C-alpha cells in the first residue's frame, strides 16, 4: 500500500464533435494517455458518464470503452452522478490503488452531450436534482441556481457586476487555453446584454453542453518510481452530502457538503487551506462558483465576488482558480468534467500548462459536486516530482 500518484493524462478538446461517437472521443483521450505516458499495464478502468443511459444510447459504458481499447484483463466500473461522475470514479480509483489490489489504473470520464435536443439536455442535466420537486414542476438546475442567486445577492448586497466577476475571470483564463471550448474574453456589458437563461443568470453565467473525454493514470508512488515516471501525489480526499432540497438546509447558499468534504481532505493531507496554491472548482454557474469559494473559507462568506475582482483568484493572484476556464469556459462535458479538472491540475504541477502556467505552485485543490452541493468531493494534490 503506497501513496497514490497521478502519472499521466489524456484528453480531447472540449467542443461539439458532430462526426465522432462516444468511443472515438474516448479512444483519442486514452491513446494520448497510453502512448505519451507509456501506461501499458493497466489493472482497472473506471469511467464516469452522466447521460449515456438517459440518452437511451448505451448502458455499462466502461465495459464498452474497455472493449474499444482492447483492455480485457482488467476490472471495469461505470459511475453515473452528473458532473461528479468522474469525481466518484477517481475517488474509487484512488481507493483501489491505496488498497494495494491495483498497481496501475486508468480513470476518467466521457460525455457526448451535444447528441440531443436542447430541451432533452436541459432536462437531463436537471435530473441530478431530486426529481420529485425539481423535474416534476419544470424547475431546471440553472433556474434553481438563479433562485438561490437572488437570495444570496439580497443577503450580501451584491449586484449584477459582482456576479459577473467569475465568468469574466474564467473566460480570461480560457482565452489562452488550447483545449477549452470557449476562448473568447467577455465583458460585463456582454454578460448583461446576453440572452437570459433564468434571471439574473444569462447565457454567460451558465456552462454550455460540451463533448469531451479526459482520463488520468493513477499508480502507487512505488510503481511510479520503479518505472521512472514523473508524478503528482494525491495527498488527501474527502466527501460529504447534505439534504438534496436546498430549502431544507440551514441556508440555501451555504455549501455544507463542500465545506465538510474540505475539512476531511485537508485533515487527511495534513494541510490547511492557506497552503493551497491553486484551486479547480466545479461550478456549472457563476453563482455556484461564489458559493463554493465562500465554503472553502479563503475569505468571509459573501466576499468571494470581491476577492475575484481584487485579483485574489486570477492566474497571477494569490490562489488562481479554474486556470483553463472551468465548466463555464473550458466547457462542461458532465461525466468528464472532474477528470478535466485533474488533467488541468496535473499540467500545472508538471509545468506543462503553457500560457496558463501558474508559477511556484506546490499544493492544489480540486472540488466537484453532485447537483447543487448534494454530495461533494475534495481532493488535495501536490509534491510533484
Amino acid at each position, binding site marked *: 500500500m503506497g501513496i497514490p500518484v497521478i502519472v499521466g493524462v489524456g484528453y480531447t478538446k472540449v467542443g461539439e464533435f458532430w462526426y465522432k461517437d462516444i468511443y472515438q472521443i474516448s479512444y483519442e483521450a486514452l491513446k494520448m494517455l497510453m502512448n505519451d505516458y507509456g501506461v501499458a499495464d493497466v489493472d482497472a478502468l473506471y469511467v464516469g458518464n452522466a447521460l449515456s443511459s438517459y440518452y437511451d444510447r448505451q448502458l455499462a459504458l466502461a465495459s464498452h470503452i474497455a472493449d474499444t481499447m482492447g483492455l480485457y484483463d482488467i476490472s471495469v466500473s461505470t459511475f453515473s452522478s452528473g458532473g461528479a461522475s468522474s469525481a466518484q470514479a477517481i475517488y474509487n480509483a484512488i481507493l483501489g490503488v491505496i488498497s494495494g489490489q491495483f498497481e496501475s489504473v486508468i480513470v476518467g470520464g466521457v460525455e457526448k452531450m451535444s447528441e440531443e435536443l436542447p430541451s432533452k439536455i436541459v432536462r437531463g442535466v436537471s435530473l441530478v436534482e431530486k426529481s420529485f420537486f425539481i423535474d416534476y*414542476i419544470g*424547475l431546471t438546475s440553472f433556474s434553481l441556481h438563479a433562485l438561490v442567486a437572488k437570495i444570496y445577492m439580497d443577503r450580501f448586497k451584491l449586484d449584477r457586476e459582482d456576479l459577473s466577476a467569475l465568468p469574466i475571470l474564467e473566460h480570461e483564463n480560457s482565452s489562452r487555453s488550447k483545449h477549452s471550448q470557449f476562448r473568447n474574453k467577455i465583458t460585463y456589458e456582454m454578460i448583461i446584454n446576453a440572452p437570459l437563461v433564468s434571471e439574473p443568470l444569462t447565457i454567460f453565467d451558465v456552462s454550455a453542453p460540451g463533448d469531451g473525454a479526459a482520463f488520468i493514470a493513477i499508480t502507487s508512488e512505488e510503481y511510479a518510481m520503479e518505472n521512472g515516471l514523473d508524478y503528482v501525489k494525491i495527498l488527501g480526499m474527502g466527501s460529504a452530502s447534505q439534504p438534496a432540497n436546498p430549502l431544507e438546509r440551514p441556508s440555501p447558499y451555504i455549501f455544507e457538503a463542500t465545506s465538510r468534504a474540505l475539512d476531511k481532505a485537508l485533515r487527511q493531507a495534513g494541510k490547511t487551506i492557506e497552503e493551497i496554491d491553486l484551486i479547480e472548482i466545479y461550478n456549472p454557474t457563476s453563482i455556484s462558483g461564489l458559493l463554493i469559494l465562500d465554503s472553502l473559507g479563503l475569505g468571509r462568506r459573501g466576499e468571494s465576488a470581491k476577492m475575484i475582482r481584487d485579483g485574489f483568484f486570477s492566474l497571477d493572484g494569490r490562489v488562481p482558480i479554474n486556470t483553463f476556464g472551468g465548466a463555464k469556459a473550458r466547457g462542461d462535458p458532465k461525466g468528464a468534467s472532474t477528470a478535466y479538472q485533474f488533467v488541468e491540475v496535473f499540467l500545472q504541477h508538471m509545468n506543462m500548462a503553457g500560457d496558463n502556467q501558474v508559477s511556484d505552485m506546490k499544493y492544489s485543490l480540486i472540488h466537484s459536486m453532485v447537483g447543487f452541493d448534494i454530495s461533494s468531493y475534495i481532493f488535495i494534490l501536490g509534491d510533484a516530482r
Partner: protein
Amino acid sequence: MTEISDWIYRISRYRLLGSRCVKCGEVTYPPRLKCFKCGSEMIDYQLPRRGKIIHYTSVKNLPERYNRFGAYYIAIIELDDGTRIFGLLTDIEKPEVGIRVEACLRKLYTYGEEGKIIYGLKFRPVID
C-alpha cells in the same frame, strides 16, 4: 419521472401533503420517510395552500415536457406556516416578491403524444 412514480406521488402532490417529525417537529415537503435532522419517524402533515412569493425567476431554457409553450415562472414560496417550497406560477403576468399566492390544480404535462396527462399544483395570485 415515470408515469408510475407520478401516480405514486399524486396524493401528496395534489393535497400538498408533507411530513412532520414526531420528535423534533421538522416539517418537510416532499414528505420524508425519516427525519433528516434527528432520524425519527415522520407523520403526514397538511401544508397550508396559501403563502407569499419570496423570490421568483423565469425558466427560459425549457426542459423536455415543459417546452410546448413559452417561458414560465418558478418561485420560492413561503407558505402560511413558514414552510418554504418551490412552486410553478400561473395566471400571473409579472410576479412580484411579497405577493400572496394560492395552490390550484392544473395540467402539467403528458407522457408522449397521446399519453397520460399529469396534473399537479401551480400557484396563482390570491384575489381578495
